[in-house]
């Protein structure tokens, strides 16, 4: 059984060297960047907008109990049934319970990262239900039996030929590898599923406290159909998704679109406030909303990292992260990848088992710089590292740093180390780049500079 850390390194090693993968991702990200920058430039004051969004989310999360209660009150007043789940297991059980009472056969789903987080699809399939992912990217990776590659672009890593191939194998229908034709195949297949489905399950981008509504952002219309046609609708949403007021969306929807996909606004931004209301002739007869904790309250309790709950899941930090761009989403081996994933996963799961995600970063800070709600992501990576080494120190590293302190601090010791280093480098040539090389981690792919014949300190000491 490989640990997540070992698996990560194996996958990272493979994908970092995969030039084809590198090219695909760099191209996709390059196009995204151009569009994103245009959208940011269209704002009169992008930095001002970030500060407003950060403060709004601070208010939402730091008064979460009050906003959640208001949210639930307004939602229940319209006949929706609200369920609270402390753990992923509870959420799965709640949803399976609803499915059992509804004579369910076919379930259609729109994208919900929380459902990935709690492995809902597996549980539903094991219970014998047919589960169909309706978002095109999710539909494709579901056919390929792999997890989504990116929280916004699940099939970003695939070429049209690979998609054609899986459509041919699993659907028996793939006229060509033309993206339009492939999309139409999916459209045909899914249309039938929307009409057949007994239950529609969605996630949500925001939970509006003031009016008791779930806001869902999408481009395809699959969530709208999931919410329109089946008789029962279920929305699974993390408790942290709260926004205080309806009008906060006037800021968040354009920001989410700009950073997520480089659009001015996504095609469909839809608010759902209950089941079919009196006077309405379609829509679900029952609407269930499952509020998910699953360690979010633990993150909430960490005042230093509480703002990681401000995340609106736009994916901008993934797009800008040089680590993500080189190793890809699957390498992280967990639901949330990229910088936000590296920050929250050690806190939502086991700290020491997942700390490697926080270490696999050069701390360049591009993530914090780009985050529309100003989460201090790279500082949180540092804090995770500190917390993990306090909980379970790596003794050889601790000793190495303890020894290094006086060596660096005392000029006499530093001089000695300098002279020893020069001698060592002579011998180093013999083992350089090979398995015996103590600096192998570096020298496998890079040359090391020689220690100067006269170091700066040596020069400074003897200068007139």
């Amino acid at each position, binding site marked *: 059984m490989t640990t997540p850390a070992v698996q990560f390194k194996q996958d990272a090693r493979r994908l970092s060297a995969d030039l084809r993968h590198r090219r695909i991702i760099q191209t996709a990200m390059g196009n995204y960047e151009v569009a994103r920058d245009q959208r940011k430039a269209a704002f*009169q004051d992008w930095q001002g907008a970030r500060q*407003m969004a950060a403060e709004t989310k601070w208010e939402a999360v*730091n008064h979460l109990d009050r906003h959640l209660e208001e949210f639930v009150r307004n939602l229940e007043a319209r006949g929706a049934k609200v369920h609270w789940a*402390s753990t992923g297991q509870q959420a799965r059980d709640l949803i399976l319970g609803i499915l059992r009472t509804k004579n369910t056969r076919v379930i259609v789903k729109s994208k919900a990262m929380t459902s990935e987080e709690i492995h809902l699809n597996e549980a539903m399939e094991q219970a014998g239900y047919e589960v169909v992912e309706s978002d095109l990217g999710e539909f494709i990776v579901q056919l390929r039996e792999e997890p989504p590659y990116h929280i916004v672009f699940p*099939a970003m890593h695939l070429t049209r030929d690979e998609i054609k191939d899986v459509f041919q194998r699993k659907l028996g229908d793939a006229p060509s590898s033309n*993206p339009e034709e492939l999309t139409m195949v999916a459209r045909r297949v899914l249309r039938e599923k929307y009409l057949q489905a007994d239950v529609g399950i969605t996630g949500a981008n925001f939970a509006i406290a003031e009016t008791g509504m779930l806001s869902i952002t999408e481009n395809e219309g699959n969530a709208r159909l999931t919410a329109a046609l089946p008789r029962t609708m279920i929305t699974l949403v993390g408790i942290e998704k709260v926004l205080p*007021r309806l009008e906060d969306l*006037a800021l968040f929807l*354009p920001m989410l679109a700009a950073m997520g996909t480089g659009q001015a606004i996504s095609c469909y931004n839809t*608010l759902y406030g209950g089941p079919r209301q009196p006077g309405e002739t379609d829509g679900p007869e029952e609407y269930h909303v499952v509020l998910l904790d699953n360690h979010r309250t633990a993150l909430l309790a960490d005042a230093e990292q509480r703002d990681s709950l401000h995340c609106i899941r736009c994916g901008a930090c993934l797009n800008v992260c040089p680590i993500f761009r080189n190793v890809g989403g699957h390498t992280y081996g967990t639901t949330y990848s990229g910088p936000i994933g590296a920050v929250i996963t050690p806190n939502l799961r086991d700290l020491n088992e997942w700390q490697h995600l926080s270490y696999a970063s050069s701390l360049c800070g591009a993530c914090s710089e780009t985050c529309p709600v100003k989460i201090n992501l790279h500082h949180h990576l540092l804090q995770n590292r500190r917390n993990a080494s306090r909980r379970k120190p790596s003794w050889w590293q601790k000793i190495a740093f303890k020894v290094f302190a006086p060596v660096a601090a005392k000029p006499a010791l530093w001089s000695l180390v300098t002279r020893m280093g020069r001698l060592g480098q002579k011998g180093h040539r013999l083992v350089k780049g090979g398995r015996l090389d103590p600096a192998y981690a570096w020298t496998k792919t890079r040359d090391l500079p020689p220690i100067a014949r006269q170091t700066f300190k040596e020069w400074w000491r003897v200068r007139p």
Partner: protein
Amino acid sequence: MSERDNILARIREALAVPAPMPGRDHDAARSRPVLPTTADQRRVLPAVGKSFDEQLALFRKNAADLRADFRFVQDLDALAAELKRICAAENWQRVASHGKELTGAACRALGLPVLLTDQAFDKRELARCDVGISECDALVAQTGSVVITSRSAGGRALSVLPPHHVVVARREQLVPDLPAAFALLKSKYGASYPSMISITTGPSRTGDIERILVLGAHGPKKLTILCF
């Protein structure tokens, strides 16, 4: 203790310790964040002209960028005539709509059988329709969006299931920006909200295959906005 009580208790306990204010320079941030006003939002969001003509032009430009077909006509008769033209060009056989004033007038001009979603209907029959014709609550200049609800636009499915969505709007329904749209929704429906509110911007689209833009992923492949 229900799970609700458990979760709320954990939240309250967690929040007993204050978290730092957002923003890089903590000293410069306010002592307590204040939720932005509409004026605050308007200072940072993309600019919108003040006059109707500027806003109309902006809406038109946005619609074009998004591949929505926007036609601004003289009056309701002209609108009906425009609709007839589209009907002929696309060879509609079956039309779906809802029984409001504008849609009623528009559909009458077509002379085709109309599936009305005002009373119970068969979703498979709706799926067989070539077009869904609906009214709307507002057109948003800033983004080129159409605001609809399950009460104003014939339910949830009419505007998204048929492959072509036609919106019939009055020019007075043009609002400058998203803050105005949300204010309108609040004042119109605040006492009793419909179960669905949708801000629709362009026809359905996806970029999930190699980031190539494809229209009509699941929702309508065409969005036509007729405004008089």
